[in-house]
């Protein structure tokens, strides 16, 4: 049963990477569309995109922290 901790940690990281990459990819794609449509606001869009990526990434990183805690303190 002890090995289940590792299984849980790995499943958590896998799901977090899956969701995070999907949403960041979608976000960057949409930003690219907007940038090519209106290149004059590209700088502003890039800043907003970076902030939003940081928010999405934080959610995936919470999972990383939880997984590390699971593995370290099992």
């Amino acid at each position: 049963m002890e090995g289940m901790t590792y299984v849980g940690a790995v499943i958590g990281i896998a799901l977090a990477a899956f969701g995070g990459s999907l949403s960041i990819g979608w976000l960057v794609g949409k930003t690219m569309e907007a940038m090519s449509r209106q290149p004059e606001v590209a700088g502003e869009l890039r800043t907003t995109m970076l902030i939003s990526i940081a928010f999405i990434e934080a959610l995936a990183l919470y999972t990383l922290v939880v997984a590390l805690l699971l593995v370290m303190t099992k």
Partner: protein
Amino acid sequence: MAEESKGIDPLHHFELHSLFDLHIAGIDFSINQAVLWTWIAGAVVFSLFAWTAATRKRYPKGKQNLVESVLDFLMKEIVLKVIGEEGRFIFPFIATLFLFILTSSLLGLIPGSFTPVANINVTAGLAIMVFVTVQAVGVKRHGLVGYLKGFVPPGVPSWILPLMLPIEFIGQLAKPLSLAIRLFANMLAGHIVILVFLSLIILLKSIPVTPLPIVGVVIMSAFEIFVALIQSFIFSILTATYFAAAIHMEH
């Protein structure tokens, strides 16, 4: 299993070891690697900027160009764009945060050194500092009552307030939490990947395969330079966003 993997445990590198024991009134003030490398990063930033300021010329050359372009970027792209003209007074704080985080994460890439921002205590300290300063700026600008009123949008029926206030309160507390965890986990994850690549050499025990992990380490180290830049940028731009929210309460 545990005994086998003990020699290459990647997390071992991130444990704090006391270099100089110091206990005052029962509180542990020991100097560990995180404290030491925080001081080194601070000393590097301070000496570079103090030296540049002492030897500045009217026509910038060499290091003065570097320092001026970095500060100009921070002023224009972060402070003026996110907060606006009212945010000029907070520029030194944001620039110091950016330079400190960037320097300490870049210093951590030197083999044998320690990354203080890969430790949750250091990033939590930075995030708490940001949180307290944001609240202080908000209270100073709007007064205590005005600042608290700003959490309630005008025209909200009073029966919904017991629901809204806790959410706003949790939202304020979540900001420093996410700041701290984002920086810490990013730095820790990158360094763990580098360490795992390096421990592959020991694990595989095969000389022909050795170049592959080394290529991986080189690529990950280059990526870590990029991550250090982007994370310090994101930390300072989010700080600026929180200041903007505290200064322009009406939006």
